[in-house]
């Protein structure tokens, strides 16, 4: 599906003939990348869409408030066991309440939930960076409000998304249709920029016109949509905008559906998260020039009977992450990708009366990939110096974003984040 010659052919035509009508029949993003490439011939443009050494950021959102203390387990802390008589997991080798933590750092007394064998394997191979106690001042304990804060990267949770602003900045106001792709029912606000709009689809098979699968009707549809902006349609008009977006959509849809048709190089578990990550891996393998992928997994709001529910989630999460990383490695793409996993908040230190935990504050963030600073980065929050029963954050989440944007994506972080934040070095 990837046609390396397509760009150059189109550029040739643009340079040589400069037919306005031809430009109109190009999808927006092909035209924009053609313009970008043209500029690159004269000036030096660092970002060359489509060039394989482009770095990629994958975001995994754990929705509902992942219980950080039973995910990154401070098994060595007496307070942990005191606050959670029915939930606290045992130290490595000594199961308690259904399991023993997997060792991460014996000196710190920190381990992983017993079902996070996937993350443990990533840790042991130097592919896992753990940032404990990530949060922000004046924590909001509403799912929606806190998620808005994480997604916008702003304390008031208002405005454009942090990754949308990144795409805006990276594209200089000429966003390309598939710079950011979300696998999910709706596009997350994190990817919404002032001009950047992400591609979002729940399943590749739905990301297309469903009027007819084949035959004359489909052929007719394809003909009309692929025509782009017709001759005589005024550039800049509503019609022109729509015709070109429809062509964008069709070309992106073709591309994505072709990408996912190939068998993956490794086998994936059956969870929804694994399916989403499998789709992402397929798009990366196919050489799409998407820089940001976004997936999510729900169910973390464990107010009652937490152990089983949270245990299942941990199993699905860790196994999906491991399969994804193995796939990227088999493709030879693992060095191009960093994956960040976060949740809108952690949960109360103390368990509640229903064998669950209530909404809390700071929680761990995981970064995955061979280019991360492996190990535990930053201190674990105190379990005694609390703020109304909740952890005080150690690392501001915007510091994590700053590392990812600045060191990984090489973007102007202050412009995107509106300030500078302290954070441990997270990338090698």
């Amino acid at each position, binding site marked *: 599906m990837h046609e390396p010659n397509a760009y150059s052919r189109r550029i040739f035509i643009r340079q040589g003939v400069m037919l306005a009508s031809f430009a109109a029949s190009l999808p927006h993003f092909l035209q924009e990348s053609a313009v970008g490439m043209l500029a690159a011939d004269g000036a030096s443009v660092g970002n060359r869409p489509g060039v394989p050494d482009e770095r990629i950021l994958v975001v995994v959102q754990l929705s509902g408030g992942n219980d950080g203390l039973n995910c990154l387990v401070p098994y060595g802390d007496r307070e942990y066991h005191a606050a959670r008589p029915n939930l606290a997991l045992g130290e490595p080798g000594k199961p308690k309440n259904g399991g023993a933590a997997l060792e991460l750092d014996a000196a710190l007394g920190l381990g992983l939930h017993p079902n996070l064998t996937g993350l443990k394997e990533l840790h042991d191979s130097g592919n896992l960076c753990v940032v404990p106690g990530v949060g922000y001042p004046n924590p909001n304990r509403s799912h*929606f409000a806190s998620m808005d804060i994480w997604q916008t990267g702003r304390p008031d949770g*208002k405005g454009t998304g942090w990754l949308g602003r990144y795409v805006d900045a990276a594209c200089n106001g000429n966003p390309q*249709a*598939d710079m950011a792709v979300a696998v999910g*029912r*709706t*596009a997350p*606000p994190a990817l919404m920029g002032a001009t950047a*709009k*992400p*591609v*979002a*689809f*729940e*399943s590749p*098979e*739905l*990301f*297309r*016109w*469903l*009027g*007819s699968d084949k035959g*004359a*009707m489909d052929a*007719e*549809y394809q*003909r*009309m*949509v692929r*025509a782009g902006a*017709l001759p*005589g*349609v*005024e550039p*800049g*008009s*509503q*019609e022109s*905008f*729509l*015709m070109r*977006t*429809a062509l*964008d*959509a069709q070309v*992106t*849809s073709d591309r994505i559906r072709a990408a996912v048709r190939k068998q993956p190089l490794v086998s994936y578990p059956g969870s929804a998260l694994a399916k989403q990550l499998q789709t992402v891996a397929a798009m990366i393998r196919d050489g799409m020039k998407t820089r940001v992928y976004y997936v999510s997994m729900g169910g973390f709001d464990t107010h009652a009977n937490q152990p089983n529910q949270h245990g299942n989630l941990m199993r699905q999460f860790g196994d999906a992450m491991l399969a994804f990383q193995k796939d990227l490695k088999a493709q030879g793409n693992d060095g191009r990708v960093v994956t960040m996993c976060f949740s809108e908040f952690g949960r109360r230190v103390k368990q509640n*009366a*229903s064998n669950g935990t209530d909404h809390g504050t700071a929680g761990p963030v995981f970064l995955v990939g061979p280019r991360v600073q492996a190990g535990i980065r930053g201190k674990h929050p105190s379990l005694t110096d609390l703020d109304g029963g909740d952890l005080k954050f150690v690392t501001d989440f915007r510091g994590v974003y700053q590392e990812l944007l600045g060191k990984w994506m090489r973007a102007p972080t202050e412009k995107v984040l509106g300030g500078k934040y302290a954070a441990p070095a997270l990338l090698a």
Partner: protein
Amino acid sequence: MQSDATTVVLHPMRAPPADLRPLPAAQFDVAAARHLLARAGFGGTHAQAEALARMGLDAAVDLLVKYGTQPAKPISPDDFDRTLVPLLTQEERQQLQRARRDRDEEAVERLERKENQSRANDRRQLGDIKKWWLARMIESARPLEEKMTLFWHGHFATGARTVEDSWAMFQQNNLFRAHATGSFATLVLGVIRDPGMLKYLDNDDSRKGRPNENLARELLELFILGEGSGYTEADIKEGARALTGYTFRDEDFVFRQENHDGGPKTIFGKRGNWNGDDFARMAMEKPACSEFICGKLYRFFVNDAPESDLPADQRSARRAAVRDLAALMRNQQYEMAPVLGRLFRSAHFYDPSNRGALIKSPVQLVVQTVRQLGTPVRNLGSLSAACDLMGQDLFQPPNVKGWDGGRSWINTSTLFVRQNLAIYLLTGRRPDMYDWENDAERFDAAGLAGGARDPQETVDRLLQLALAVPARPERRRELTEFAATRSDPSDRALSTLALITALPEYQLT
């Protein structure tokens, strides 16, 4: 310049008149009537457009704007349950506190279960209210009433997720409907007494000594004047003091004198013991108010192409038209019906450059497809879910600014959902994995092509009905070739229509 479905404008458009002089009566043809129906409402059938055209411009505009003559769908406070919120009675809340203190786990669990049950009931009711409103938009004999209700909902944006009280959202919706084309000033005074708004912008928490500025700020910035239009931070601070004590209890507005800051305040340079009503009135006295509201009405009803993409002469014509509307709004003491009436009579409104110049909102797309093509309604819950997927979850605008509208509705993802929604309405066939309900009712589209003798005629009639812009010759030719391959008239009409609704041009109205 007249346009019908088969002419194509191949040269740049001339600018529309730079004022609101009326359209010459003779130019109010069926296409113009169709334009009026789509904009002042949610579109109508060919027969309805013909009937309006026969009435003539004045009578047609009156029919839509002075809708008091048309039957109203009754609304009763009993339509929905007012008592779902608060989720627990005061007594139960005290019990819960006591049970938590005494570690009475059984009681805690029982009360929390009840609270969760009530919350689930309230969310279910919100879903029912969404369906109820969509049904009104689809069925109403007063389409402008519903359309303006939608306009005010987007303007005084209030999010149900924050309010967490479906009845308050229902009540607010009825406030917008009651004042849909009435006095803007009266509406604003209603809005600062509306429990949903007071909750959404935290005014229930605002009291003397610690005023919350949220409502005062948005009144100036988003509801009355527009960002940066002749007010200062100090005006907001003083306005917030004026609004203290405006709160609600049990779904009704109350003014709490004891929480109100009755001291002197300086607002827009005038000193007095102003209250919230004074603050709103003083803001509305500024000319920026009518300019701001009319600019927004213009983008909602006339043309929402970005100004930067317009040729200079069209841009200045647009500004002149907005100025005229604003002057009229002031002359009419902020009554909106005369403003809309003048707009819908103007040659400017019917100018070719303003036909098909709006991108349908998701709600407009859904309702107009049903009302104009006459498809079955299918499943209201599915239609409401589809609006959400397309970016317009009713009662849940993205933030207090409301929906941005225009081109922001469209991206590669929403465009496919838009096309597939049309397929769903036409066929009842739910795309796999969309969370919609299949529907077996068959839609006979042959009637829409009423007596067309050949494929060309079928295509022309359907294009004329469904598209707001003149069909391009390429489209006409290709669709005709396609239609010729289908012999059964019903199949021919339906499959052609499915293709027309998939055209990018179908998103325009």
